[in-house]
């Protein structure tokens, strides 16, 4: 069974002027452990598609199956619960809680899951160590660089032991060196822990590193190409 199955997925925004169809009849299957980039120019529907896969938005047509469950039919609170336990999010602007330390930011997701304090603390420290921030656990987001904040965001996304991680333009705010380091880290997580990553991006550095590139144009899938096959991410 594929991890994610999209059947004829559509999303239309009813704006004041004319209806805008942001996603048009997209059908896709994403397997576990994939390292997939969803690419396309601005306005091609990347973020909308990611929001639909992440259950942040409701489709106006079609269905989204995640691990066999149609998330488009879930009620609001069930959907939030589903996101909490199955999906990790990494946002372009990091979106950490500024008054929490790096460790507390990672812990917070586990608190929402009802994990005990001791286990939360242990896992938060392990995750921060694995993203190379073992020495920054007590730093607050404003004290960290953009790259470091995005690493904390990745650790936070992994804290809930999700089925996959959705990353919306994760390198957009980072310089090339930091972006490269972040991609290395995510590739390592994909390789070592089998974590599935789905990116929306128009960053050639990310596209180059992906093993599958889904290109959108005007909300529809223009191409779906597998690359770097047989080559493990390094």
């Amino acid at each position, binding site marked *: 069974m594929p991890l994610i199955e999209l059947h004829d997925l559509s999303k239309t925004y009813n704006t004041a002027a004319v209806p805008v169809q942001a996603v048009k009849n997209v059908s896709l299957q994403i397997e576990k452990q994939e390292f997939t980039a969803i690419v396309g120019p601005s306005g091609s529907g990347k973020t909308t598609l990611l929001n639909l896969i992440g259950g942040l938005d409701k489709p106006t047509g079609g269905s989204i199956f995640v691990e066999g469950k149609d998330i488009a039919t879930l009620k609001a609170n069930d959907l*939030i*619960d589903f*996101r909490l*336990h199955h999906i990790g*999010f990494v946002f372009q*602007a990091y979106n950490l809680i500024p008054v929490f330390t790096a460790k507390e930011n990672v812990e917070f997701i586990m608190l*929402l899951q009802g994990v005990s304090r001791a286990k939360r603390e242990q896992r938060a420290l392990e995750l921060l160590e694995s993203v190379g921030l073992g020495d920054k656990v007590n730093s607050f987001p404003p004290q960290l660089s953009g790259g470091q904040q995005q690493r904390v965001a990745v650790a936070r996304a992994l804290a809930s032991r999700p089925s996959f991680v959705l990353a919306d333009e994760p390198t957009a705010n980072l310089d090339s060196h930091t972006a490269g380091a972040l991609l290395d880290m995510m590739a390592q997580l994909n390789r070592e822990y089998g974590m599935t990553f789905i990116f929306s991006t128009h960053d050639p550095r990310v596209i180059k590193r992906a093993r599958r590139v889904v290109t959108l144009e005007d909300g529809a899938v223009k191409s779906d190409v597998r690359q770097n096959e047989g080559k493990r991410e390094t």
Partner: protein
Amino acid sequence: MILSLAWKNIWRNKKRSLIIIVATALGLWGSLLSGAIWMGWGESMVDTAINRDLAHIQIHKPGYAQNKEIINYIPDGFRILEETKNLPGVKAVSGRTLVEGMAASPTSTFGVKIVGIVPAQAKTVTDIYKRLIEGEYFTGSGGRNPVVIGRKLADRLGLKLHSKIVLSFQDLDGSLNYAAGKIVGIYKTESGLFDQSNVFMRQADLFRLLNTKPLIHEIAIRAESARIMPQVYAAVKANYPQLAVHTWKELAPEVAYTSTAMEAFTYIFIGIILFALLFGITNTMLMAVIERFRELGVLIAVGMKKGRIFSMILLETILLSITGGVAGIVIGGLSIAYFAHTGIDLSLLASSLETFGVSTTLRPFLPLDMYIALPIMIVITASLSAILPAWKVVHIQPSEAIRMY
């Protein structure tokens, strides 16, 4: 952790939070202090009335209140007086012989109540002896028929200490009696009305003048404390069903009402202040929420249920309000304690205060239950203030909020 997050969120914008905290603190401080002054006023009225003549409980013959004639004395009054003294919870009792009459000087006359007392007994129940501004309280021989009168009566009749005063009253037979007394003491209480209409004599002198056996019309009872007064009242009432037994609240309902009304006014005043603060707190929280729209959207996106978000905003609002509230209660409590210790001097208003029977030194007072009720009122206010901001938050669409900059 949610509590910690809520607390830290308050201090993200220190200036804004401090403004509302200071406003809450000052609002509560002002309302508590003014409320305490009102309640101190009410308590002063109650205390002075109880200490002056009401005591806690009084016993009369039924119908005495309607017909205050000399013949309406308490049957077997001295036995009841002795028995009452030994009841549990009774601190002291005083038997009073009451005669309506006229007081005359060479220049004027005035209607008075002549109160026959046993001075040593009266001292244990009321504090007129402490209110003497001239002379003494039946301590010396004082000659024949020593009399203690109020300052206001002395002024009305143009009398001074050691002046002669002529009292006229009916005896048991209905015959009019005249007796000359000598003013041995002049008192002044908080009530001008009381001072001009109450003349004190020794009971023994009054019995001699009335040419009657010892009789009393009123037994004033002082309970060990105001708290146990209801139990003492119930016991007295049960022991003497044939007599009229009344608490001070029944004897002076206007004083009891004033005291209760002052407490009600204080609650209303605090309620108005909190109602005004409600809008300020709502505004502060709305600003705080709008500023964090994206972050709150992220929290919903990553799995924080709306109920939990609602609770977090509610908690933030309560913490913000209770911080100001506690500060206000502490400052208010300290101010009240300070003024209760030093007293507020209102002697400039002495003549007006006499009308109300209020002491010129006002000691603010706030009952303990108000210190308990106030935090509850603050939490209710905060909860109401949180509704609009929290409502906004639970309606956040995470996909839209995340894109906000």
